[in-house]
């Protein structure tokens, strides 16, 4: 990672604050523009995009508060892309890229990079990254659980110019669109992404006009240095030593068995080295290339650091990361298939890092969030006689982990998105796609048990309207619930993990693997997402809190007994046998102590 150039110009603290404000406002303007103009519901309803600003070196000078999935991966990707075109970057160029072997995360997240020139000199990059509706390949929406190689997943785009000195390269754009489904929406989304880059450019040039290059450059360098100092100060508070955390990626139907990811965090004074070890890559779509793995590691770090915005690359200067040997699950190489990587195994990687930090600083830990376990859908919309394809973000909204001070948020996950997603209004989804959403609600007993309860997961029940619908499931978290913290664990497991219930005529089944299936009008599927992990011993949860949860249907009477050791004698009036409860709780505590 590039180191800071010492600032030649001395910065006054006032201008510094002002420049920081302008950078943040600029990024917000880009985000807003993208959300308002995009066609893909994954952007405009779900916020599955990120915007960032880079300087000419290129270092990230501002990361939006958007999706953590994109948190780390833009940093290496920008360097790869700028490096590829080094010496050939001109005013009016626009670069795109999506390929994980070229520093990307997963290929459906396509990045747009606009070099911003000022007085003939490259000053900044405005960057937008977003989850497109489709990226070509054999399976709509990109997720192909049957892919054995990356070549069977999607159109791979290495760094490519789509504008050359102000001229759109129609041949290249046409080449790309020809390889994708839903061309009309894709063209609209490209316009939206380019528009957002231009909105950022407009604001940055305004800032240079007003304050001058030297002052702005010095301010930005100072902001990077200050972020560095902030992270170093924080790391200094952690006792020196090596801490290890491990977490399990479930076998979601690939047959290679459960796999363990381990993070070894070594703290030395104000530096932190993180070493990841993971099993060899497998011919299944859950391999993570290095760029994507950075996001997982940085998210685990931020769950410990808990820093408020703004975020820039200076934060990571004192952090070094070794993703393990090439060819492993968290440092994959061609031809490993990878499309599911931003959720699986990224969330498990995040858990491993978080658990290592939990050992380092036990007082500063939040429980894990529910992992993504979701759906893509595709089919023919007879209402307009056109194709539809999308990831349904509402199907991955899980519960947040509890913290040392409060219950986890309901319906706020998954862990890889950390509350940045939105699931989209039921009416807007039914307007956009030929479906009926019968249910989108919280699930009883889904939040992990603890002194503070994990947030509830959600159920999303859908029926196709008019015509058949293909659905593709992805992710995991269907057997192992979100990992609790500070001694939290649940007894009632089945309600807390993800799964999919399929009802076809008289037949019904529960699916816990990643599959591609077709259902008909009248059939229904219900995708259920896990709750968050709890915090602290559930036997210490106040009885009245559990009663309130029962009253509100978040915990059942049975769950109260199994998870919290509370004996309810009258399920109507919710009267508690306090003596029996105390005895049961004492027994449970004694068992746990052994």
């Amino acid at each position, binding site marked *: 990672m590039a180191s800071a150039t010492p600032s030649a110009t001395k910065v006054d*603290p*006032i201008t*510094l*604050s*002002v420049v*920081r*404000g*302008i950078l943040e*406002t600029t990024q917000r*303007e880009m985000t807003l*523009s993208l*959300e*308002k*103009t*995009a*066609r893909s*519901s994954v952007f405009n309803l779900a*916020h599955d995009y990120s915007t960032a600003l880079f300087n000419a070196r290129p270092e990230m000078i501002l990361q939006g*508060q958007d999706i953590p999935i994109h948190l780390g991966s833009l940093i290496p990707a920008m360097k790869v892309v700028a490096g590829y075109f080094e010496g050939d970057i001109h005013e009016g160029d626009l670069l795109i890229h999506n390929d994980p072997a070229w520093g990307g995360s997963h290929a459906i997240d396509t990045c747009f990079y606009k070099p911003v020139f000022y007085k003939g000199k490259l000053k900044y990059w405005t960057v937008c990254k977003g989850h497109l509706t489709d990226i070509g390949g054999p399976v709509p929406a990109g997720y192909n659980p049957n892919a054995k190689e990356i070549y069977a997943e999607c159109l791979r785009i290495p760094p490519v110019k789509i504008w050359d000195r102000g001229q759109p390269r129609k041949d290249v754009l046409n080449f790309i669109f020809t390889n994708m489904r839903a061309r*009309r929406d894709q063209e609209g989304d490209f*316009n*939206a992404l*380019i*528009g*957002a880059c*231009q*909105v950022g450019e407009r*604001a940055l040039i305004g800032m240079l006009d007003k304050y001058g290059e030297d002052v702005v450059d010095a301010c930005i360098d100072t902001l990077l240095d200050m*972020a560095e100092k902030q992270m170093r100060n924080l790391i200094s508070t952690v006792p020196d030593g090596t801490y290890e955390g491990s977490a399990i990626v479930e076998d979601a139907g690939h047959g290679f068995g459960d796999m363990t990811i381990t993070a070894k965090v070594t703290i030395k004074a104000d530096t932190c080295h993180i070493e990841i070890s993971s099993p060899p890559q497998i011919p299944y779509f859950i391999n993570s290339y290095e760029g994507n793995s950075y996001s997982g590691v940085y998210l685990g770090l*931020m*769950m410990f*650091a*808990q*820093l*408020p*915005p703004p975020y820039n690359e200076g934060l990571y200067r004192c952090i070094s990361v070794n993703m393990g040997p090439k060819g492993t699950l968290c440092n994959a190489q061609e031809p490993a298939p990878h499309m599911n990587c931003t959720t699986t195994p990224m969330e498990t990687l995040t858990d491993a890092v978080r658990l290592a930090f939990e050992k380092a600083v036990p007082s500063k830990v*939040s429980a894990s969030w529910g992992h993504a376990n979701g759906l893509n859908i595709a089919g023919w919309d007879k209402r307009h006689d056109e194709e539809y394809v999308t990831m349904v973000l509402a199907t991955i909204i899980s519960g*947040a982990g509890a*913290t040392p*001070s409060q219950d986890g*948020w309901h319906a*706020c996950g998954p862990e890889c998105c*950390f*509350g*940045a997603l939105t*699931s989209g209004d*039921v*009416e*807007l989804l*039914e*307007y956009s796609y030929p479906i*009926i959403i*019968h*249910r*989108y*609600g*919280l699930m009883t007993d889904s939040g992990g048990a603890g002194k503070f309860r994990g947030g509830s997961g*959600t159920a999303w029940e859908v029926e196709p309207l008019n015509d058949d619908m293909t659905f593709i499931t992805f992710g995991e978290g269907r057997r192992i619930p979100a990992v609790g913290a500070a001694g939290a664990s649940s007894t009632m497991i089945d309600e807390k993990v993800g799964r999919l219930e399929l009802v076809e005529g008289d037949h019904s089944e529960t699916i816990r693997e990643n599959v591609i299936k077709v259902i008909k009008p009248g059939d229904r599927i219900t995708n259920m997402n896990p709750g968050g992990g709890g915090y602290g011993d559930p036997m210490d949860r106040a009885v009245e809190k559990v009663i309130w949860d029962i009253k*509100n249907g*978040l915990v059942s009477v049975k769950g109260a007994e199994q998870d919290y050791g509370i004996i309810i004698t009258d399920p109507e009036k919710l009267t508690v046998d306090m003596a029996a409860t105390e005895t049961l709780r004492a027994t449970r505590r004694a068992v746990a102590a052994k």
Partner: protein
Amino acid sequence: MRTDYRLGIDAGGTFTDFVLADKTGQVRLFKALSTPQDPTLAIKNGLALMTEELGVSATEIISNCDLCINGTTVGLNALIQHKGAKTGLICTAGHEDSLEIRLGHKEDGYRYDPEYPPATMLVPRYLRRGVRERILSNGEIRTPLNEDDVRAACEIFLAEGIETVAISFVWSVLHPDHERRAGEIVREMMPGVILTMGSELYPQVREYTRTSTAVVNAYLAPIMKRYVTAVDAYFQQLGARQPVRYYQSNGGLAIGQAMTDRSVYAINSGPASAPAAGLYVCAPFGKTDVITVDMGGTSFDITLTKDGSTNINKNIDFLRYRIGVPMIQVETLGAGGGSIGWIDEMGLLQMGPQSAGSDPGPACYGQGGQLPTVSDANIVLGYLNPDGLVGGRLPLDAQKAHDAVKTKLADPLALSVERAAYGMFTIVNANMVNGIRRVTVERGYDPRDFVLVGAGGATAAHITALATDMGIDTIVLPKLASGLCAFGQIISDVKYNYMATAVLRLDNDAAYARIDSLFNEIEAQGIAHLQTDGFAESSTMIKRSLDMRYVGQVHECTVEIGNFPVNAHTIDQIKAAFHARHEQLYTYSEPHSTVEVVNIESTVYGLVEKPKRMHIVAGKPAEQAIKAHRDAVFSADGKRIRTPIYDGSALGAGATVKGPAVIEEVTTTIVIEPGWTAVLDESGSYLITRKEAK
């Protein structure tokens, strides 16, 4: 009977402002402490102040008012403090949790904060009752309403002692019959209940927004009803000639019944009158592009008016609750006279959003406050008169201000006290400027095309600095700035929003005809409503807008259109307006893509006669109004400059004051920075300009 007066009463967080305009154009400003426990008490106290000054009884004043207008924070406070009524929700089975899922999102800025709490539920889960029924996205009935489910919900509500109920079904906006029938059953079983129907209150697409809006409305309705009933009765007793008009957050007036039925329209009414006031004070200068900024003790409100019309927000989170109905777009920041200066973890100077409030208040109040605030900085900089605010009633302690800035900020940052104070001044200004950017640049407007109007007691000290930072060359600062919002209320019209939904692609005649007939339908309803309020059709007005987007987009742009028939001939004009707006906002348009309409809205106005303008006569030369000099700071180097202090009440029309200068009005202090020149206009406002823009 005489109608000598018009009275505006604006209840704020700390003070309730009273503006009394009379036939001659004289406008008097009174301030009484707000009384949140009993809001009518502040009104009584304010009337007592008027009686004292005018020697006329409250009854005489009120019975001689043509209109009494009240902006209230009763609804706002109930929402902030979660002290609304116990509310029940009846919704489509399977969708009971949309209110709590909140689209699965956590607000930006708190991503990794482990202590940021979820939003408090206005209706807990056990009082959100799903009933079996379903309408589809094409308006067809999939599942008929199960009336027994509605009755079962009512049984629970009755047992829980609920007095207010919201009903909101998926796609009710396309087929409201199920909501209507459910409403009949609720009324039958729960006589006296206050009922809010989603499809009536907010007939637009988006179930979560509609349900949330209906719930907020239901939650506030009993509170508003009690308040409105008490105020109406009090004014009736004083012999009011007309029902009291209440101010709404859409920037218009409404009678008490409308405030009960549509209480959600009351929640941010305080700053919503600023645009009307801004336009009014700018009218003598022929300006219609106006940004009005209002800096009080704890907050800074920004509103924008372009070509005489004001930005309206729809479908936003307000105090963490999704509100669909139109509200004047008010950008509110934690930046006021009481905002505290502090040094953050990164060693940067920050201002606010924490405020010293009125207790203990800024250090200079001498009430025990130790922390340096904006007011303290303004004292150190020589802007504010240590002899006091509010006409000398509250003396300020300059030494305490100096000490607070020195010990808490200047010393740790190794700056002089002047430089630190100027830094505080600059940063709070920068925060305000970023706020102004959010309502201008982020919406595609160039702030340099606007006039800046100052409102609120604390703004005038910052106004030339803000304008300089935004590149704005023209400021209008009324002598009444401190009570400008109350003034805005007495010059506003009655205003109701009527909405309809029709998702239609603009490529066929049937779509144009449908839009045209929907406009006519909702406008007939609106005019009928105004007629029951007592307006003749000749004193009504209608404004139309359409929410449009390109097919495939999900979010719309609101575009205002004229009152012409919508048909094959006029449609190109409508589309062109949309393309232009899209390009202005997002740097591009797609002229060849199909455009679709989503929502239709007509705003109906009942026009109210305006009071006569203030008129100031010419006076002595401005120099004779100089009452003192202070050494004030106008630059980051902290250098002090000998600066004349003008007595504003001694200036006549045409008086010209060149910066650097300070003009002290009774309720506000205006800082004129070097390079700026203020001229007092006969309309009672200072026109402050600078010759050369940077």
